[in-house]
């Protein structure tokens, strides 16, 4: 007990606390992604906002057609890391990236990488649903139009497909031309998912997609994630431990800008390799 107390008091304050220091064989075991086709991978990724370093040496593998969950206390860098995967951090001035992020084996930070194409291939759903103030159909069609995907006559079909895949079609099919702002919060979030799916990304990044939703809407989005992983590689940041346990196969635990542990979800939640992970998932801090 005294042991626990020490950890919970010390870790959040001291960045180089021994509690998360390597030593216990940092990723000494085989990567949990071993034996699977990798979709994305980061190698020794460092990231800083101005003088403040936010990510330290993150090496992580994301296998295809699985759900990988990122958990960790607020400010631990999981969202920052997620946004590194489609270079959304580029738009924040005065940031620096070191290391590599590979998508299908190619470094997305290499010169000559087309950011616009990258973001088409690695889609993103945000914490707060952000439908455009346009009609429902135009929201879904937006990505198709700007990327020149599909002819004018194909667009309605693709819009329907995307809305079906995000389980929203039945609810909106009679009012595709009305404003997306009139949808409920949960519907708006599923619309944003449909919008991201319409451009047929390979990877879907979700940054706490349910944090602003009520339990029923959350269940719907979770069911949707479960469905989608058959075709997509999904990475989800969540503050909700149960959600990580329910939807993901792999879980990565972040702490103070470092990757503490990355393993099969059931292993993380039943038999974590690090003491601090256990403390976090059992709610002793965070």
């Amino acid at each position, binding site marked *: 007990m005294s042991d626990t107390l020490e950890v919970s008091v010390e870790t959040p304050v001291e960045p180089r606390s021994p509690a998360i220091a390597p030593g216990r064989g940092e990723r000494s075991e085989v990567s949990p992604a071993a034996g699977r086709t990798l979709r994305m991978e980061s190698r020794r990724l460092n990231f800083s906002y101005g003088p403040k370093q936010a990510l330290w040496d993150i090496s992580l593998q994301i296998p295809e057609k699985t759900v990988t969950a990122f958990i960790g206390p607020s400010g631990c860098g999981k969202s920052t890391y997620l946004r590194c995967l489609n270079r959304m951090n580029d738009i924040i001035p005065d940031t620096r990236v070191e290391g590599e992020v590979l998508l299908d084996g190619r470094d997305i930070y290499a010169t000559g990488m087309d950011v616009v194409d990258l973001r088409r291939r690695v889609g993103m759903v945000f914490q707060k649903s*952000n439908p*455009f103030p346009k009609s429902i159909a135009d929201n879904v069609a937006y990505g198709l139009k*700007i990327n020149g995907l599909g002819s004018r006559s194909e667009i309605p079909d693709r819009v329907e497909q995307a809305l079906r895949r995000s389980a929203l079609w039945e609810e909106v099919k009679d009012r595709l031309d009305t404003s997306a702002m009139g949808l409920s919060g949960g519907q708006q979030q599923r619309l944003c998912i449909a919008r991201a799916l319409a451009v047929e990304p390979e990877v879907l990044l979700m940054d706490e997609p349910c944090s602003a939703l009520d339990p029923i809407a959350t269940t719907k989005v979770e069911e949707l994630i479960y469905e989608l992983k058959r075709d997509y590689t999904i990475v989800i940041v969540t503050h909700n431990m149960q959600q990580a346990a329910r939807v993901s196969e792999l879980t990565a635990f972040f702490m103070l800008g470092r990757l503490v542990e990355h393993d099969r979800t059931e292993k993380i939640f039943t038999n974590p390799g690090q003491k601090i992970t256990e403390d976090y998932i059992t709610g002793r801090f965070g």
Partner: protein
Amino acid sequence: MNRTARRKFTSGLVVALCGAAVVLALVPLFFVFAYVISKGFSSLNWDFFTKAPKPVGEAGGGMANAMIGTLILIGIASAVAVPVGVIAGVYLSEYGKKKFATLVRFTADVLNGVPSIVIGIFAYGLAVLPVKHFSALAGGLALGFMMIPIITRTTEELLNLVPGSLREGALALGATRARAAFSVMVPAALPGIMTGILVALARIAGETAPLLFTAFNNRFFTTRLDQPISSLPVQIYTYAVAPYEDWHRQAWAGALVLVAFVFTFSVLARVVTRRLERMHRT
């Protein structure tokens, strides 16, 4: 108890002062309207809206040429100022963290404060001197220069009110920065931008000084852009300072029409804003 009473009294006093200030602000407006209507309404007739001025010394005629002229001048001004102003506003809002943007912002504010007669002189040097004659084009240009800073600043301010999450959403779908700005941010801010444009129009519709030596005046009916053209404010001015009783009456009528013009723009601004906003919401 005593303290509560005092606080209540202070509160009541402040509310009363606010009310008094509102009344004071509205009184001049009310009197202007009342005076212009009482003086001008009796001189309004069909001829006034359909005829050009009669030769000096002859009674009758109207200001149709000036009304058309004002509309043409406003049209030219908008054609110049709306694209420039909106695009500059987008620049300031989307890329406006740099030094150059600060300079642009400052310049726009200064330009906004430049006396309109000075703007007129500038347009005179730019568009009248080289061709050696007054023209509607020069007048429209002068008015356009006055509109640009207003539109630029309102566009910027309204774009800043659009949540940045929309921009991120567009970028995450593979939009380029410019695409995101013009296909998502500007449409989201459109109701406000339209209001800004209409307010700018209302503001310049009544300008006299910049037109005096650019568009000049014209007693005949014309729609040619390379010729001097009449406008309501200049016509009112010319008639008001002339020694003829009939012209004075016509000047009042012209003033009434001008006020109605500006009023229409303001109402239009409201209606358009409301209409567009409703479209955005549900």
